[in-house]
Structures are given as C-alpha cells and as structure tokens.
C-alpha cells in the first residue's frame, strides 16, 4: 500500500516455538519439534507482510505465537511498543482487540449455534468497544462493509456459503476495530471466483480502515496480489525477505527460486525453466545442520552442511531491505556455481 509509513507496528525478535515430544515410560520430554527456530522480522504500520512456505515451515505457528495462542518458547514480540510476552493473560486478552486473526476454515472458527448478530455482538462485548445501544447499528454497518445483507443478520453459520462464512469471520475481526489482522490461510479454502471477491474485500478494507496485515499463505499468486513485502520460510527459518517486486522478480535464495518455478502457470504458451527438487521437506524434529535447505539444494557444499547462513543483503545485487540466508548469493548470481541436480 502507498500509505506505508516506516513505523514498526509489530516487531518479532528471535522468536522460537518448540513443541516437546514426550515418550518413554515416564512420558519425559525426549525431543522437540522446532516449528519456529529463531526468527526476527517487523511489520510496518499500514503494510501487508506475507509469510509463505510449504506445510510444516512454521508460518502458521508464527502467527499463533504472536497472538500467544500457543505460548512461544523464547523471543520477543513487541506490538505498538508493548512487549506482548510480558503481559498477563488478562492484559493479553485486552490487547487482542488491536490484533485480530482470521483463520482458514471459518466454519471451524465460529460458533455454529450463534447467529451472526450474536457472533458479532459477543466480540464487541468482550472487548467492550461500544456502548450497548450503539452495537446494533455497528453490526449492520459491519455486515454492509463485508458485503452481506442486513436480512442475513439473524441467520446461523450453516446457512451461509464458504465465501460468506469467511466474510463473517472478517466482520468479527473488524468488529473490535483492530489495528492489525493476522490472516492465516484466510482464502485458501475458497474457490477462485470467491477467493477473488474476498481478496478484493481485504484490500478495500485495508485502504479504508488503515489496517495492517500479516498474511500467512502457501499460495504465491495470492501473496503477489496482496502483499507489500514477502517473507519466505523453510523448516522454521526465514530464508528470504524482500519487497514484493524484488522477491518475485529477483529472488536470491535457491529455495525461493524453486518455489516460484514450481507453481504451474495458467498459460500454456509460457515456456519456463522448472527446477524440480529432489525429495521431501525433512522433519523439523531433527532438522538438517547448517543451512536447512542443504539436503535438497542443487548448490549445496560442505560449508552449507556445517555453517548456518545468516540473512544478509548484498547492495550490488539486491535492493535495500532485501535479505536472503544463503552463503552463495554472489557465486550463484555470477554463474560461478552451477546447480547439481
């Protein structure tokens, strides 16, 4: 969005989310799933930052950890200058007024026994955003904002289609007037024609209400459409972060390149070079040493097996703010290193 300012609304530092694996006779912790392993990034007020990656890369876990739906193992999360992890449960609940989330499956995240009116007024009541007598009006206004009719106000979730239910989820998030919304695969379950409607709605709302989005998705088409900046994750680590244009037109990490080349293009005349990776994503229980992508990377060397690459920028090749975690950005760019499939 053009309204992007440079103030950081959300700042995540060294965030770790480990889930213990219990085993043995005594149910002791035997290992951890390192779902998110030491990541840092910030989201500026008014922008959309997307987190992309494949299943198990930690993108949803990151979203949940920020909201403390799962308590993070370590790290810092600052929202509007406040340290979220230092808040009490009660304070955190209050804080969620400003920081909302919309999930993938709206049917699983709204109460099937409540009408739309109840769903929306409950959210407002909990966060105490409006005096009671003004809520009715606000509900009607919200329905209109998300493109639902006033006559649908007393209907139950099962009376709506998937796209409409997602609109209810959006209305609920908006009902408390948040500054930021985390969208966790919010359009993934929808058919394309409906997905486009919801994406356009999200964009319109951002313009009108000055919202900040953290948009979590596996769909790079959707991400290109909605984001200002994009962050790519692989096995719990950030491998690349950049403004949208740089990421799609000038990707630097071999994983980002592979991901982009793997998406089928809806145009049979496009001849593209497809990089096909060997094997699957390794398990996050025992992630590979060094660069986590080395087991599948066509450029990997001994150094990649031993040393974990830091996110870095090379000013000659990359724009400001574009960083990738690869030892060999320069060598790959110059052609000095050739892929070994």
């Amino acid at each position: 969005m053009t309204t992007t300012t440079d103030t950081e609304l959300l700042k995540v530092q060294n965030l770790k989310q480990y889930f213990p694996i219990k085993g043995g006779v005594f149910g002791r912790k035997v290992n951890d799933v390192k779902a998110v392993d030491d990541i840092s990034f910030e989201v500026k007020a008014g922008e959309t930052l997307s987190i992309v990656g494949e299943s198990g890369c930690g993108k949803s876990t990151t979203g949940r950890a920020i909201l403390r739906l799962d308590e993070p193992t370590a790290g810092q999360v600052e929202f509007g200058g406040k340290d979220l992890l230092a808040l009490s449960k009660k304070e955190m609940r209050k804080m969620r007024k400003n920081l909302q989330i919309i999930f993938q499956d709206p049917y699983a995240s709204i109460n099937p026994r409540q009408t739309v009116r109840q769903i929306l007024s409950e959210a407002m009541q909990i966060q105490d955003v409006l005096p009671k007598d003004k809520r009715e009006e606000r509900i009607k206004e919200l329905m209109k904002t998300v493109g639902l009719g006033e006559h649908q106000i007393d209907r139950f979730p099962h009376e709506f289609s998937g796209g409409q239910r997602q609109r209810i989820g959006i209305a609920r998030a908006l009902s408390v007037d948040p500054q930021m919304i985390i969208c966790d695969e919010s359009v993934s379950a929808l058919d394309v024609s409906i997905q486009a409607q919801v994406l356009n709605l999200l964009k319109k709302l951002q313009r009108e209400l000055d919202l900040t989005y953290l948009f979590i998705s596996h769909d790079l088409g959707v991400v290109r459409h909605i984001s200002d900046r994009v962050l790519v994750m692989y096995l719990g680590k950030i491998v690349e972060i950049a403004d949208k244009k740089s990421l799609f037109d000038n990707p630097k990490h071999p994983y980002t390149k592979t991901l982009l080349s793997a998406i089928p293009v809806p145009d049979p005349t496009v001849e593209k070079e497809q990089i096909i990776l060997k094997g699957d994503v390794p398990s996050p229980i025992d992630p590979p040493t060094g660069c986590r992508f080395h087991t599948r990377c066509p450029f990997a060397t001994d150094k990649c097996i031993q040393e974990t690459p830091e996110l870095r920028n090379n000013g000659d090749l990359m724009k400001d703010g574009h960083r990738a975690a690869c030892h060999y950005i320069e060598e790959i760019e110059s052609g000095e290193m050739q892929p070994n499939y």
Partner: protein
Amino acid sequence: MDNTNTIIKVDNLQTSFFTHRGEVKAVDGVHFDVPAGKTLGIVGESGSGKSITSLSIMRLIESPGRIKGGNITFNGEDLLAKTEAEMRSIRGNKISMIFQEPMTSLNPVYTIGDQIAEAYQIHQGLSKKEALQKSLGMLELVGIPSPKARLKAYPHELSGGMRQRAMIAIALACNPQLLIADEPTTALDVTIQAQILRLISGLQKELGMSMLLITHDLGVVAETCDYVAVMYAGKIVEYADVTTLFKQPKHPYTVGLLKSLPRHDIDQDELQVIKGMVPSPDDLPEGCRFAPRCPFAREMCVNSLPDLRDQEEGNQVRCWIHTDEWDGPEVNVKDDYDYGYRTVEGTES
C-alpha cells in the same frame, strides 16, 4: 472432437442424486471424448460436477446417486451395460484412478508392497512372489527412494508426496489404457506437486496412456493437458484445445475464472471477480446456468439454455453470445468482461 482414436467417449451423461429434497442433477448432459494418448482436463469449482463425472465413468456412484442416462463407451464397449463383476475386472486394470487424498485411499493396515501386488494378483493371476517382484519395479518407476525397504512400509510411514507416488504405482501397475486423476496434487505442496505432475506426464508418454485430469487449478491444466472442458453447475460450458482455451476463452465463465486468478508471474492491480456464487444444484436457474452471475446476461439468457455449439476454432461454447440468435450488442467476452458491466434485473444478490 471426432477423433477416430478415441479411448473413451462420454455421451449425454446424466448423474443425479435423489435426496429427500428432490432430484439433484450433479451431472446434466455431459459429452466429451478422450483421444488415445492424450490428456483431457476437466476444470470447475466445487459443485460443478467434475468429480461425479469421473466417478460415473468408474461406475462408482453410490445410492442415493444414480446414472440416469447417457452412454459411456470405452474402447468400443458400453460401460453402462457391464455387470458389476465385469466392471471390477476393468477397474484398476484397464481404467485406473488416483484421488486427491492418498491416505484415505490407501489401506492403513497393509504394506505398500501388498497393495501394489494385489493389483497383479487379481488382474493378472500372478503368485504373491511374482507380484511383489513386479511391485518393486513399479516403486522404482515412480521414483520412490530405496524401493526395497518401502515395499514393507505402511502408508503412515510415508510422506504425502511418497504416498501419492505409491498410489500412482498401484494405479499404473496393470498398465491401464486410461488413467483418471481426480485432483491428484491438490493436497500437496507446490514443490512436491511439480514432482508428481512431471512424474505423471512422463509415465503417460512412456506407457502411452490416455488421461482424464480433474482439477480446479488452471495452472495445472495449462501445464499438463492437451484438451480442456470447463464445467459449471453440471454442464460443460466450454471445450477447446489447451492453447485456444487460454488464448481465446469464449465463455464468460471461463473468462471470469481466468481473470479472477491471482498470478504469481505477472502484476495485477485489481482482481476481476465473478459476482455471486455457484447456484445450488437442487435449485438451478432455468436458462443459462451462469446467467445470474454473468455480466453480459440478457433476457434470452435467463429464459433459455443455450447448447454447446461448435466454433470456428474447433472449440465448443455454450453461450448465446456466440450464436446468431444473440440479440444484444456485439461483445468481445475476453476484452469486455468487467464486473458489474450489466446486471440482470432481479438476480442481484
């Protein structure tokens, strides 16, 4: 579409579900054929009838559903006239199918090897030992690493991509003439999807199979299909070879679908949308089924259903705009498609 080397021909297929709310016409008069060695893609959104079409070919429609009418001719034989026993010798042998979620189609209590071997034992009468030997070959063919160990693995021990490879191995074991792939990569991550699509296309060429690919993903269609049928609310609305379909789409629904797709390879400002939603199959519009959502719809569209008609380019379109009867202004569907361009009275939701 009149190709002499047709492997399967579907003619006026009608499959309905008879529920307490009345008849639901899931597939309503579908025609297509798949030329030998080629891939036909059937695209559509949820509820368009694409999966029911493929299940009808396999005769896997269960009560309250029933194939109400039409013909399905496979290699000159009428599939709808076959007995259940005859169908069983065709399924998994001459026509195979792979589904979206391999975990639900694999048997969790048998090893991968047993499940592939079963196909050989049933259809070719091989002994268990011979069958396992051949299964090993299949696992190698579909690119499963250390195939010998995997023969003894259970489905839960494999990753999603590996399971789908195992499914493909089972499906291709008896060298079928037709492979029906119903959303084969929808549950997979893109990097794995790319592997599986490449594998399927490669094997198809190698083994000379024909393929019917059911998908909602236009990208997958563009990369793997030779011909495409676009389905909407139980009917085919457009049929064309893949290049023509993407270059010169003619039906407003196809155009809307292409324009509402967010692309990762080009910049788009605003996404076009298709307004409203798919009609419920137990309450279909009388005229053109897309009319309530179509920006070009006129009275004639609301009142009467157009046929699927041949076009100059060899494709077929079910739309009044492309007929002589069209009584509206001249329209170039691809260029003029614009949300809210015109609305039919009373259909605005």
